[in-house]
């Protein structure tokens, strides 16, 4: 996909998003005008700003049509294959991290996440990989759960129960 096509698609998407936001205000039954005794309705701010967004999107589409923006004249690739690989894999791994955090808990998810980046993607030594895979969860546990007293997600009950002995050990001895 060229940059020119991407700008057209982005213009259409932003226009649809703007119209969607306006529809959302209308569907919620929020007043977009003056309400006697109460002032501007709750929908005034989001509705009229969304209309502004729609107009800005139309202006972008018009400028695309007339070739006024550098992007609308560019036939370069929007995302080349190298970038797609790097960015795609990074975004996918964050996605996978979030899914894993929900099911297998933060710490196991972190170990898998670090193993993927350090060993599989970075091809670093086993020593370095072990350092990051083991060191990161320990550092995160000490920072978030001990220092900041934040309870991070432990996943499904089976994983959460398996983790409880660490907390028990900590509270019993420290």
């Amino acid at each position, binding site marked *: 996909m060229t940059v020119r096509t*991407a700008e057209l698609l982005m213009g259409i998407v932003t226009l649809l998003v703007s119209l969607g*936001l306006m529809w959302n205000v209308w569907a919620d039954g929020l007043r977009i005008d003056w309400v006697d005794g109460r002032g501007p309705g709750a929908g005034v701010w*989001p509705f009229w700003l969304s209309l502004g967004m729609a107009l800005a*999107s139309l202006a972008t589409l018009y400028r695309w049509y007339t070739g006024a923006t550098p992007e609308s004249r560019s036939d370069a690739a929007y995302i080349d294959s190298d970038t797609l690989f790097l*960015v795609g894999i990074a975004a996918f*791994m964050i996605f996978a991290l979030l899914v894993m955090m929900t099911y297998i808990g933060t710490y196991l998810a972190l170990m898998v996440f670090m193993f993927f980046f350090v060993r599989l993607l970075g091809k*670093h030594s086993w020593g370095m990989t072990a350092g990051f895979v083991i060191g990161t969860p320990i550092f995160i546990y000490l920072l978030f759960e001990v220092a900041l007293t934040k309870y991070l997600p432990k996943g499904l009950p089976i994983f959460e129960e398996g983790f409880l002995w660490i907390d028990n050990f900590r509270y019993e001895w420290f």
Partner: protein
Amino acid sequence: MAAAIASFIGGTVSIILFTMFAPPLAVFALKFGPQEEFALMLLAFATFIGLGGDDIPKTIFSILLGLVLAAVGFDIISGQPRMIFFDMVEFQRGIGFLVLAIGIYGIGEMLWTLESTKGQIKMHNVKITWARMKENFGEIGQYINSTWVGSFIGFFVGTLPAAGATPAALMSYGLSKTFSKDPDSYGKGNISGVAAPEAANNAASTGSMLPMLTLGIPGSPTTAILLGGMIIWGLRPGPLLFQESPDFVWGLIGSMYVANVVTVLLNLALIPVFIRVLAMPFTLLTPIIFVLCVLGVFATTDRMFDTWIMLFIGVVGYLMRKLNYPVAPAVLAIVLGPLAERSMRQSLISSQGDITTFVTRPISLTCVLLALLLVSYPLIQRYTRKRKAAAATE
């Protein structure tokens, strides 16, 4: 070395100017009502449109998107739920600015860095010795004048919303070159060409704190995030902050002096360490940053839902940035959104819906006129350029 020293001087001059100007500006700002507050925010957004240098419709879209996203959740006046997308109850708590800021500046920025560097590290082999540092110290006289120029320009440019460090650095470079005895040597190794912008960008950072603390209007994305942080801690930046929380304000100003000294010491002593960190392969640095982004957001809100929003915003922000949609105005708008809506609605309620309330008070009228001037500035510029081109062809 010269950059570190110039930055220190720029920072110190800027903090002294800040200490001098902040109290009188805060006293002046006590006269502000909701009309003035709203007009001032309008001015901040207009500055991004007029002087931001980005595509205007895209900048406007970015600002408005930020303002709309800030409205998600319960209405601040009537208490009605609004913008609850797909009837998901999680949206009732709104979208925190930290979630958006980390999405854009954490995830989005990292994806952008991955694209621009292709995961490769570009690092020169730098050798730093004490003897070389001592030698550089002795050269301070060569660039002290341009450092002063950069310091003063940086501070005043930094106080303008949307201006920030880059225009300050460019302006000070230009001015320093203009007044130099040897302007041709700029860009060819003259150390003054480094000192002036370095002093200016550091001074601008402090300068941008002035409108944030005294008026409650952040001048840059960084100060917008600071403002958000203060709100989380129950403080309301603005003129009353100097009266209600003097301990906090003067403590903060005092910390700037200390921070400036500590920074120059760290800069000089730890340059080799910083270089090592920057030279870390992306396969080590990237996952650490991603993990801190995800857990940082979770720790702030205790909701996995917000981490998903962060990822979504980060990827969308990256895709939009590739098409020249500016992200800084959106972050500023997210922070200012609730304040802007409240002041607009308070103004209209107090005036019984009379929209002229924004132009019948001298301060708000001045701000509105300045905002209009800034918005029309690119059009004026284009018209002038066309006339010049037409005159040249004749």
